[in-house]
């Protein structure tokens, strides 16, 4: 079962037909498998002569490997089949269509939009048995909740408009109660927030502390990085600010935190950010600034130092 929670005028009818088709193991996996096998057989024959210390290091995996997991990869050039959409039970929440909140909720001391959303989530959890209240239920599934643009004016909150919002605690209280609901049920929630609009950074710090996982997407569109040749292969950066540390002292930390995303014709991929080798003409020559610095030192009599303002002196 799945739940989609929305707070904007875009209802389920608009979003559902736009969902991309999932990639299944057999078709896509085989394609990637053939490519990877071809690459591996080439490498095996070349042994490194100069950089031999790197011979035994694993080949850097930039893109998803042959082991594709269902639900992780999608073909964005195709749409999800209507049969797949209809096979799942969906609930939606559209703030302006909801009934006015019940009298008891007036004592919540929270923005009414958030309060009604919490009440709606709690009702679905208990009615559909995600809190384990129905032991007879054979198929145990996870309730997946998606909340769009939390904190925006569409939820009746002014945290995106003002540095000193009228009720700065509603958003964090909402997240705390939601955290409690998720911990006490078989559910998971993903929330998007327009962080670039929230001017009060203290609130963003508190939001991060109340979340298990925090990921940021930074697009290059409209920024100076769009034309930077170093980033020409990518469309933006992925920042993993925080990962969950649940039921354990350690957390599942990956080797790299430098990630970038790319929107190709068929796929949205997240890859390790690696800078291309600098093959331009000026790569081994002193740049103009270095030369100017050297000239100054020469004139002041420091001949040896003026050879090049570099750390190497040979």
């Amino acid at each position, binding site marked *: 079962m799945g739940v989609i929670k929305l707070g904007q005028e875009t209802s389920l009818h608009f979003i559902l037909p736009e969902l991309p088709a999932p990639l299944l193991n057999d078709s896509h996996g085989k394609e990637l498998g053939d490519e990877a096998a071809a690459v591996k057989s080439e490498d095996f024959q070349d042994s490194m002569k100069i950089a031999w210390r790197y011979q035994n290091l694993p080949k850097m995996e930039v893109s998803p490997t042959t082991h594709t997991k269902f639900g992780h990869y999608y073909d964005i050039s195709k749409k999800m089949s209507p049969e797949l959409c209809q096979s799942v039970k969906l609930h939606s929440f559209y703030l302006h269509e909801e009934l006015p909140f019940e009298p008891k909720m007036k004592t919540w*001391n929270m923005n009414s939009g958030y309060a009604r959303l919490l009440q709606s989530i709690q009702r679905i959890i208990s009615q559909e048995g995600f809190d384990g209240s129905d032991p007879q239920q054979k198929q145990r599934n996870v309730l997946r909740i998606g909340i769009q643009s939390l904190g925006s004016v569409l939820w009746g909150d002014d945290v995106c408009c003002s540095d000193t919002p009228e009720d700065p605690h509603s958003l964090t209280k909402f997240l705390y109660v939601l955290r409690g609901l998720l911990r006490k049920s078989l559910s998971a929630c993903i929330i998007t927030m327009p962080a670039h609009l929230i001017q009060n*950074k203290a609130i963003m710090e508190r939001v991060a502390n109340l979340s298990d996982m925090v990921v940021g997407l930074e697009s290059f569109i409209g920024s100076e990085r769009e034309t930077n040749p170093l980033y020409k292969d990518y469309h933006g950066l992925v920042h993993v600010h925080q990962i969950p540390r649940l*039921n354990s002292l350690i957390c599942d*930390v990956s*080797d790299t935190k430098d990630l970038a995303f790319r929107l190709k014709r068929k796929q949205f991929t997240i890859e390790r950010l690696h800078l291309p080798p600098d093959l331009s003409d000026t790569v081994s020559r002193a740049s103009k600034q270095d030369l100017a610095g050297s000239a100054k030192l020469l004139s002041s009599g420091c001949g040896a130092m003026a050879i090049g303002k570099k750390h190497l002196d040979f």
Partner: protein
Amino acid sequence: MLAELNELLGAAPERPDAGKFTLLRDTRTDGSFLVHHFLSFYLRAGCKVCFVALLQSFSHYNIVAQKLGVNLAAAKEQGQLVFLEGLQSCLDLLFGEEEQPGQPNPLQFVSGSTPELRALFDFVRVSLSAADSWKGPVLLVDDLSVLLSLGAAPVAVLDFIHYCRVYVCCQLKGNVVVLVHSNEDSEDEENELVVNSLCHHSDLILWAEGLATGFCKDVHGQAAEQDLVQTYQYKIQDRNVSFFAPGLSAAVL
């Protein structure tokens, strides 16, 4: 408990401290391993512990505690551990039945009926006041910064801690351990106010920091006892945290 940390602090469960206020600070990292250490340390020492757990569920602490050699469920049953699960209390407050007059919800300030943290302090007081056979009482809080997110004013939070310290450390000769988050370039002024004030009133401050140079797989951060010159780097493993002098990680040697 973390044996290496005990060595560094000169602490042993056979002779726990008395009347001490310990502040745990984390910056750019998750310092919750320190909370797990103190929880298991004081339970091993035979102290009565009141744990105000605001951020995680009971099962999370229980699973980690088992890796550190302590069974929280058993401690709760025997009356050694009084556990306040903040998340559950908040759900009870907002979705539950009308509260009973004799048992106010410790987090009732969230729904705005009372502006200060009196009910939370009363909970702590009642939990630790019973004359048991356990050794000195301990109050553990994880983490205090959450109270600000729930709408408590900084002054109310400081008053709460003051009352707890007077009652637990001075009157009962017990110990208080509190975790707070802080960042050097934080814009959360209320939080920084609370942290700075608590620093002045603490007997011991343990500071866990992410490395200034960024993420490293083999060294997760550095920890220091404030006021001491010595800083240690640490690496968190599944059942243990190893401490070493800066630059002497096993990965480097």
